[in-house]
C-alpha cells in the first residue's frame, strides 16, 4: 500500500491527456484566485467587506468587577471576565436613584475587544446589594470582533458598600 497519499498518482497522470486538462484547470483556477485576491486586497474594492463569513456565537460571560473611579453617580468598574469570551472588562456604570441602571462596557479579549451598552431595572434599591436585570446590545469592537453586533440579557448585582459589581451577560454575538 502506498502511504505517500495521492501525490504520486497525480504526478503520474500529468503526462496523459486527462492530466494535461487537469493541469490547465488548475492554472486557470490559480489565475482566477490571484485576480480575486488582488481585487479583495485593492483599497476600496467593491464587495471586499462581504467576502468575510459572518459568525454567530452564543455568549455567556460573567465578570466580577471593582470600582476604579467614581464621579458622582457614575462609576468606572474593571475586572476579569470568564465564560465564552474570557478577558477583562471595563464598565461605565450609572446609578442615580432612577429605577434603571445604565452601563457601557468593553470586553478586552485575546482576539480583540467587544463594546456595548445595557440597561437594567433595579429590584430592591434599599438592599446593600441590589440586583438588576435588563437588556444589552453589542455595538462594535476591534480585531476579530471589529464588526461585532448582538443583543442579549444583562443580569447584575451592585454592592453599595464597596461599589463592586457582578455582571452576567447572556446573548448572541454576530461578528
Amino acid at each position, binding site marked *: 500500500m502506498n502511504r505517500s497519499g495521492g501525490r504520486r498518482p497525480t504526478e503520474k497522470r500529468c503526462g496523459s491527456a486527462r492530466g494535461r486538462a487537469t493541469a490547465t484547470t488548475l492554472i486557470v483556477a490559480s489565475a482566477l484566485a490571484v485576480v480575486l485576491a488582488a481585487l479583495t486586497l485593492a483599497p476600496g474594492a467593491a464587495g471586499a467587506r462581504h467576502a468575510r463569513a459572518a459568525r454567530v456565537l452564543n455568549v455567556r460571560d460573567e465578570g466580577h468587577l471593582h470600582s476604579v473611579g467614581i*464621579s458622582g453617580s457614575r462609576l468606572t468598574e474593571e475586572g476579569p471576565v470568564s465564560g465564552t469570551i474570557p478577558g477583562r472588562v471595563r464598565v461605565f456604570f450609572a446609578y*442615580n*436613584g432612577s429605577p434603571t441602571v445604565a452601563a457601557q462596557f468593553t470586553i478586552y479579549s485575546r482576539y480583540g475587544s467587544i463594546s456595548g451598552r445595557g440597561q437594567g431595572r433595579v429590584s430592591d434599591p434599599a438592599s*446593600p446589594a441590589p440586583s438588576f436585570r435588563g437588556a444589552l446590545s453589542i455595538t462594535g469592537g476591534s480585531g476579530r470582533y471589529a464588526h461585532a453586533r448582538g443583543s442579549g440579557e444583562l443580569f447584575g448585582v451592585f454592592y453599595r*458598600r464597596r461599589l463592586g459589581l457582578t455582571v452576567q451577560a447572556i446573548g448572541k454575538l454576530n461578528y
Partner: protein
Amino acid sequence: MAVLPSRAGAAQGATLSVKFTPERLGAPTTLSFGFAVAPGGAARNALTGVELSYPATLGISTSGLGLASCSPALLESGGPAACPANSHMGYGSALVEIPIGHELVGETATVALLAGPSPNTSLQLLVSVTGESPVAARIVLSAQLLPGRLDIRVPPVQILPEAPYVALVRLRATLGGRLKYYERVHGRTVAYRPRGIVLPTVCPRNGFRFAAALTFLDGSRSLARATVPCPRRG
C-alpha cells in the same frame, strides 16, 4: 423654645440653603440643605410637601448611605436609636409651630434621616422629627429619592382635637457626615464611616443648582432656589 406671635394666613415665601462640606470635585462630601417658610401664618396653612431638586449627577445612590432599612413603626415607637445603625443617613434640626390657645409656640426638634423599606424601585427615606418641649412628640415623614429629586411628604398633625395643624416651618439636614456603620469582616463586626455623597469630577455649568418646591395645605406652592458655585477640583 420660643413663643411666636399668631399670624394671619397669607401667601408664603420660602428660602433654601445648600452647602457641601468639603467642597471638592470628585471627592466624598456631606450635603447640607435647609428650607424655611417665610413668616406668614404657617400654622393656618401647614406645609404638606417639599420637592427638593438636586443635580442628578450627585452620587446619592452611590454614597453607601442607607445600607439597611428601618420600619416606620419602629422609628415612631423607639426613635432613631431603635433603628439599625446602617439605616442612618443624616441628621439635622427643625422648627415647628404648635398652635396652643391663641398663640403659636415654636419648638425646636431634632431630625434624623433614615433609609426606609423600599417596596418599589426607588429608595425610600424616613425623616424623624422629634420634639421634647413644650410638647413631646415625634413625627415621621416619608420621602422618596428619585433621580434628581427628593420628595418629602408632610402629614397633617394635630396636638389637640380640632386644633389647627402643627406646622413645619424650618428644616435643616445633612446627608452623610458623622455616621458610624458596621460590617462583618472575617467573622468580626467592624465599624466604619460610610463614604458619603461623591461629587462629580465635572461641575455643571453655572454650578450645582437646587430648588425646593413647597406645597401647603390650601394647595398653594412656593419655590425657592439655591446654587452652590463650582468648587475647586479635589
